[in-house]
């Protein structure tokens, strides 16, 4: 079994079989991560570049660890916005990197479509580690892995993505992946934070958080960006917390067991109350390990494709 594409640019259009293969492979690696010797020689001799145009320590460390566990040689390029403005174009940078005989490029960029662009101009396998507000496929695969771990399945489950869906790269990837695998997806947030025309993707839109809690098996809670730009989309953080924040009171009213996912770091008292955040600690730690397993799976499947 192998993947049908040589890149992972996003989850849009990725077939069910590929998603299942990645999740199943991740399970195997998850077991390896529990062993005393966590390293396998699978990608020995392969060179992987982590090209990060945006600071994202969590994602980068997760990829780096996955690469080490697979015995690949990895190189980090962290390029701040300052050096972009100094004149070297993205194309120059990637051509220089490719000259080093690179097998896989993991790229993170604030502009949507950069992984697609790289896949056109260079011959390495490209993995999207987050592009603008477009996609973040490995994060979504990790979310799906964690859901499957808890419920033993994905098809037929009801998953709601809560928060600033319009400015989230995680939301779109989750929607594509979950829909493909047969889950029911809804989104919940202030209407200014719901992407235009999202219903056309077969996604249900709700604006009432209690309803979202009641109707779903899983809440995937997005981090609210607290900087000024994001805050133009709602009147105040207080109002957001009051109307869309998840509190233990709200959860208790519902009664049934619901899985809450959060990509971290949590804004306590905003999207999750402190109490709910504390209760989530264990799950979040598990998600970190799951993230490494999922990224190992993606790297392994692409790295052994040729």
């Amino acid at each position, binding site marked *: 079994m192998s993947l049908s594409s040589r890149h992972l640019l996003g989850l*849009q259009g990725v077939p069910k079989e590929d998603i299942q293969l990645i999740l199943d492979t991740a399970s195997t690696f998850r077991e390896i991560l529990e062993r005393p010797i966590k390293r396998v020689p699978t990608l020995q001799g392969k060179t992987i570049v982590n090209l990060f145009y945006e600071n994202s320590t969590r994602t980068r460390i997760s990829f780096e660890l996955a690469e080490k566990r697979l015995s690949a040689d990895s190189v980090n390029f962290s390029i701040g916005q300052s050096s972009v403005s100094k004149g070297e*174009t*993205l*194309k120059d940078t990637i051509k220089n990197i490719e000259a080093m005989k690179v097998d896989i490029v993991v790229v993170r*960029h604030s*502009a*949507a*479509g*950069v992984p*697609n*662009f790289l896949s*056109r*101009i260079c011959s390495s396998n490209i993995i999207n580690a987050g*592009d*603008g*507000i*477009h*996609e973040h496929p490995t994060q979504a695969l990790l979310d799906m892995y964690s859901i499957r771990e808890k419920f033993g399945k994905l098809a037929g489950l009801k998953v709601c993505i809560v928060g600033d869906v*319009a400015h989230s*790269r995680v939301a*779109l990837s989750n929607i594509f992946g979950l829909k493909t695998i047969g889950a029911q997806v809804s989104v919940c947030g202030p209407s200014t934070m719901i*992407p*235009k*025309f*999202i219903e*056309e*993707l077969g996604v249900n839109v709700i604006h009432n958080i209690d309803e979202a809690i009641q109707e779903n098996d899983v809440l995937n809670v997005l981090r609210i960006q607290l900087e000024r730009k994001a805050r133009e989309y709602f009147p105040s953080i207080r109002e957001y917390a009051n109307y869309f924040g998840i509190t233990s009171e709200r959860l208790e009213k519902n009664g049934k067991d619901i899985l809450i996912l959060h990509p971290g770091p949590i804004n306590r008292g905003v999207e999750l109350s402190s109490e709910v955040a504390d209760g989530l600690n264990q799950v979040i730690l598990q998600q970190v390990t799951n993230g490494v397993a999922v990224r190992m799976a993606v790297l392994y499947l692409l790295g052994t494709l040729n």
Partner: protein
Amino acid sequence: MKALITNCSIVHPGQKLNEKNKDIFLVDGVIKQIGNLSTSISADKVIDLKGNYVVPGFFDMHVHLREPGREDEETIATGCNSAAFGGFTGIACMPNTEPAIDSAEVVKFVKEKAADHLVDVFPVAAATVGRKGEVLSPIAELYEAGVVGLSDDGTVIKTASILKRAFEYVQMYNLPIIEHCEDESLSGGAMNESINSTLLGLPPIPSIAEDLIVMRDIIVAEYTKGQIHIAHISTRRAIQLVREAKAKGIRVTSEVAPHHFTLTDDSLKTYDTNYKMNPPLRTNADIDEIILGLKDGTIDCIACDHAPHSFEEKEAEFEYAPYGIIGLETSVGLSLSELLHKKILSLEQLVEKLSINPRKILNQSIPQFKEGEIANFTFLNIDEVWTVDISKFKSKSKNSPFDKRLLTGKAIGVVNNKKMLFGGEFIDL
């Protein structure tokens, strides 16, 4: 030189001409005789058009030449060559150069650079100094220097107040104001707001950014009795607004670019920056309205918004790449393929939109098929099937989304200013 062009099909809707098998005899670039002449006349040069069309020379009223300032992208000379090979004998060039065309000196510079060419270049000047929207340009001086219109194109004329003043001032000179309609508080995105912008995660430009300014400008034009021309109209609502305004007798005209009736924002799926322009590619519903507008005359002319950009600048992150594509060498082919052959416009209507109406809007005389007139023609083979090849473009830039596209119909030559371009060569007449 005596030149005989034989076997022409002459079409000129302004003169109500549609005649086959005619010969045109030129002496030193001036029409001497039109009729069935071939046997009776001896000429230095005989060109057999084999039944192809001769129409009044095409005119594109929205072209960005990058000189002065960005000669690496386009010069006046390369832009004129691109126009001639695309089938145009006249172009109006937009003022967003560096420096902007906002003084008589820059107008003079442009005119001098274009002086010896087959293609006539008509500068459009900035409406406000530096296109900043603060102070009116020296409009009287610019008029005297020979500009044909005013525009802050590239951006909108910033405020209703400076727009109103510009309308009031240009009344003395009967110049149109050509507006790039884009509300700045809603602008800055990379593509049309639609399901596609959601799917691609690209910052959107909602269609109302255009609609709002079209509405503002129509109202200000009505109030001041000014003449407003809406550049590169692209949205359904904007076209409806122009239609309503025309019915009321307000002096409003509009143009559409071939890419806006050919492509939709579905084309952006590969993040190819050759599909990034401003206004952005819209939806099928907008194209339907454009077609209606072309048919009923709401849209007066076709202008390609030729916008050369260097390969390096276009080959970048989609959000950071500049807006715009070149169009002079595909405009006629796209218009014939998409409008004539799809039976949306007749050849006469197409000639109106590509030759007669833009000249009327800019108060320029219309070429006539009459003895004693300067020959100003475009030759059309409406049935030739050809493949666009950007490597053969005369433009200095190659940023076109139409490379390798199969088109039906093209301009096969032009005549103007005692020069002819035919068979790929310029000939002095």
